């Protein structure tokens, strides 16, 4: 088979057709170019990923449990972005970040609800969603007692986030009892 210029072409010669020099250099050229471009792409991507972060602390030592009364305590919200909830039998910390889009909800003691000012999500003290668009329950932060001085340590970067389900009356619900496990709950 001959091409338009009268040269023999490689068509129809089966898989073992020798790659002519021109084709070889074309392949090497384009292959090299594309590989270089891919390298530029990967390099640019990695350039934009910061390797060292200078972010606010997430671990707080907040005094002995006796400092806190039964119910929701909001004093650490502005400093550490969490609420402390004390019950008869134990304590846990709720991260004060709305699970919808990250605003900080407000605590309404009279209604016993956290309500978000951005899109109207409503949570109860267990963190379950009682209204509004939030798709998941509030995070619970890791909480523990310092074995030496007995103070509470809260780490908001370690978070409990079980998959919720829908039950009659509550759209986004996680049974509160199984959530009361270390390190997200301290027994008193």
């Amino acid at each position, binding site marked *: 088979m001959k091409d338009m210029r009268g040269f023999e072409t490689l068509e129809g010669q089966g898989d073992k057709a020798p790659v002519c020099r021109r084709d070889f250099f074309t392949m090497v050229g384009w292959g090299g170019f594309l590989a270089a471009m891919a390298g530029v792409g990967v390099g640019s991507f990695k350039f934009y990923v910061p390797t060292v972060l200078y972010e606010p602390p997430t671990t707080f030592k907040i005094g002995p449990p006796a400092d806190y009364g039964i119910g929701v305590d909001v004093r650490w919200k502005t400093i550490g972005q969490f609420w402390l909830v004390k019950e008869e039998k134990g304590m846990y910390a709720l991260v004060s970040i709305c699970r919808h*889009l990250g605003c900080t909800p*407000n605590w309404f003691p009279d209604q016993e609800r956290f309500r*978000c*000012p951005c899109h*109207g999500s409503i949570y109860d003290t267990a963190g379950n969603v009682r209204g509004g668009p939030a*798709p998941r329950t509030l995070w619970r932060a890791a909480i523990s007692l310092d074995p030496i001085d007995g103070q509470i340590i809260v780490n908001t970067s370690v978070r409990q986030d079980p998959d919720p389900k829908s039950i009659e009356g509550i*759209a986004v619900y996680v049974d509160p009892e199984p959530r009361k496990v270390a390190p997200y709950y301290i027994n008193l």
Partner: protein
Amino acid sequence: MAERSTTENIYPRNQKKSYALMELVKGQGFQTRKQPEDTVFVWPHLLYIELIAALVSLAILLWVCTFKHAPLEDMASSDTTPNPMKAPWYFLGLQELLVFFDPWLAGMVLPVFIIVGMLAIPYLDINPKGVGYWAWKERPFAIWTFMFGFLQWWVFIIIGVYFRGLDWQWYMPWDDWTQHKPSSGATLNDMNVILHGWGVGETAANLATYAMTIGYFALFLILPVLLWRKFSQQLGVVRYLLVWSLFALLMLSPIKVFLRLAFNIKYFMVTPWFKL
């Protein structure tokens, strides 16, 4: 071709000439309805208009600046969110959409579909009429669909600006906007939970919600071809599928808002990976 003889009769062909009248046909020539071209020089006619428009708009902006200053709130603090937190007005439509849909849907997938849908408009609209003038009657489907989406966006914006107050609750203009409103007593439920509450088995209730969602889209894909056969044929298969899938998505947000407000339904379909 029947008029061939007529043409020959009126203008007999002269064999000595290399040219002749080929054909007479009935109908209007494509120029008959048009007026002679009426053009003007851009300098000065158009440029003056542009200059005046720019100056007038600048004057209006400067006038606004004399009595209304750009807002500046308190310094950023990550611990307290202002109540209510309102985005600038042009994003309030999106913010309102986020009240009813999950973030991945209202914040990402729907906006992407809006953009893709708008990009696709010229390729989906096969009606050649109505170019270059304000036309309502010649392309009712295109205009009404577009108006529906556009107005929906503006209705959401108006709700966001004028009817949302503390804790993102609904406030009427005459309400006291400094008083918190109690959260509504109604609790939201998923569709499958509601069905389950009516005595349907759990798996069957889940399957029923899947069937309803698929049925919704199937309805939009099947019904038009039955109702408007000719229009559908003109569209062709690919355009037809695209037009009506996008149309079904466009209708989804008012339907979901209605379901939420009327029946307190949070999701109408729940899968292990995402919820609609």
